[in-house]
């Protein structure tokens, strides 16, 4: 397994310009982009997520690394799609009705993309119908985000809506969400933070929590 150490560090230390340069060079040199994604980009961003979970880096560093990762995915993603590289699964994500907060939701979306999922980002203030429409477009997992104690209850009608449909999994997360709350509303998964959300999505699809 080849790891591109320079790209790894550029993602971890959020040097967006360098990330773009290395990824573009890899494209120009016709390197194996799947290998670059799986062996370097995804684990590098996971390292940032783990550092965040451990309290070693904070929101600005995490945002900056995610932004660098997103810039790389914008280059690599369309090229991989052209070669027939299939995403692990399609998922949708949105902040629930009444909640316009999107920083955490955006981080999870970038980490999901970086982890090989196709992400249908529904934005903020999303209603049951928005999630249902995304499922109709092929989403297998519905990810719900809420920052506020006053908006978390807007997750209930979405969980209720998909309760009897085994083929649709509901994963919840956000500052005020706990495992206990996820259990009470009958969600299939709960992500404690952005890194943990990837584990939760993988697990409810029957995949190992952390990719090999």
């Amino acid at each position, binding site marked *: 397994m080849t790891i591109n150490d320079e790209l790894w560090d550029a993602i971890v230390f*959020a040097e*967006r310009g360098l990330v773009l340069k290395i990824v573009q060079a890899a494209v120009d040199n016709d390197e194996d982009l799947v290998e670059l994604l799986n062996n370097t980009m995804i684990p590098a961003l996971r390292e940032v997520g783990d550092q965040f979970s451990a*309290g070693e*880096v*904070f*929101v*600005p*560093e995490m*945002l*900056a690394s995610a*932004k660098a990762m997103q810039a790389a995915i914008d280059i690599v993603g369309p090229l991989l799609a052209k070669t027939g590289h299939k995403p692990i699964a399609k998922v949708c994500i949105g902040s629930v009705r*009444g909640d*316009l907060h999107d*920083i955490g939701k*955006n981080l999870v979306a970038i980490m999901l993309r970086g982890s090989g999922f196709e992400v249908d980002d529904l934005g903020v*203030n999303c209603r049951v119908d928005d999630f249902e429409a995304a499922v109709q477009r092929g989403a297998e997992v519905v990810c719900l985000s809420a920052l506020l*104690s*006053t908006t978390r209850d807007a997750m209930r009608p979405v969980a209720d809506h998909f309760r009897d449909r085994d083929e649709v999994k509901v994963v919840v997360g956000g*500052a*005020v969400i706990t495992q206990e709350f996820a259990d009470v509303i009958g969600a299939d998964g709960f992500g404690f*933070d952005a890194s943990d959300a990837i584990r939760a999505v993988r697990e409810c699809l029957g995949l190992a929590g952390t990719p090999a």
Partner: protein
Amino acid sequence: MTPRERVLAAINHEEPDRVPVVIGVSNATGIKMKPYRGIKELIGVKAPDDYIYDWPELGTALIDEDTMRRLHSDVRGVLDLEPETVRQWNKERDPHSDYVDSWGSGQTEIGPDDWYPNVHPLPDATTPADLDAYDDWPDMSDPTRVAHVREAASRLAKENQYAILATPWLLFPFERAHAMQGMDVFLLNMIEHPDFARVLLQRIGDYCKQLMGYFLQELGDNVDIIKIGDDLGTQKSLMISPRMYRNFLKPVHADLIGFIKERTSAKVFFHSDGDVAPLIDDFIEIGVDILNPIQTNAGSMSDLAMLKKRFGNNIAFCGGIDTDRVLPLGSVDDVRQEVKRVMQTLGPGGGYMVGAVHTVMNDVPPENVLAMVDAVEEFGHYPLGS
């Protein structure tokens, strides 16, 4: 003891007759309109549904005097106002369009009585020149901001019953930077354009000092506590690293607090949500006297015994009654027991005032607000039992 004497004793780390109650003043120690209406109904008070700062979109009620007494509140507020022109503009605008304040930042309507800070005038600024080019920096010298302050404060001082907690709106440099740029944009700029981020915080800090100067001039000696702050914590940690805090923000906070302390002997009350335990020594060093809101469901802030033991001799605490689960979801007895527990942990030796962790939000039953303050009467008289 008068309520004022009670508060002054507590913040001077002495035991008063009972633990003071701080509720109904400013936003962070205030009550939203729905629970306020519920409380008035329960206690049979008829008073208008007015808003603090004359600002309905903020949603925080201006609590009438009868209700303040029933809530056993030991403080009374003196606030500033947006300039008359800004208030008038907002009153005359389409009621569903964005509310815009005197900095050019503002709120978007999400639903009935629900507004979200979503108007950011400087999302693309990355250089000091971009800040120079912005035309809408606030005019802090506008006399209509503070025209009412002298009379309001001197009336309270003459009554000499309640501690005066004075709060100009959001002289919080970090949060103001979020308002100007969008939170994620500013946080990224702290990494990608650190010199610019420092200049923006400094410039905001200068405006904060300007308004604080006019405000303090009107207050004169008629003030006991000045509230400032900045939300720095998240549910489990800090939003930015301690190093970044010390590098970017601490000098701005220290400058503002120094400015206040040169002009008044009032205590400095610093509001900061989330788990800010790793910064409490920094707050003490720069002159914070009272820390609020002690968000007990956030990381190490749940360890009240540790907070009291480690910091309690050097800083007073205000808040601590959970607004995430206990107040909105707990029974009346859950609330009573939690208030008792928090008082018994933070209250010994003074240095603690009961308050909700941030505003009493619309999901809190009014019965629980009364249960919170009544528990102080029931269990909060010194010496505190075990």
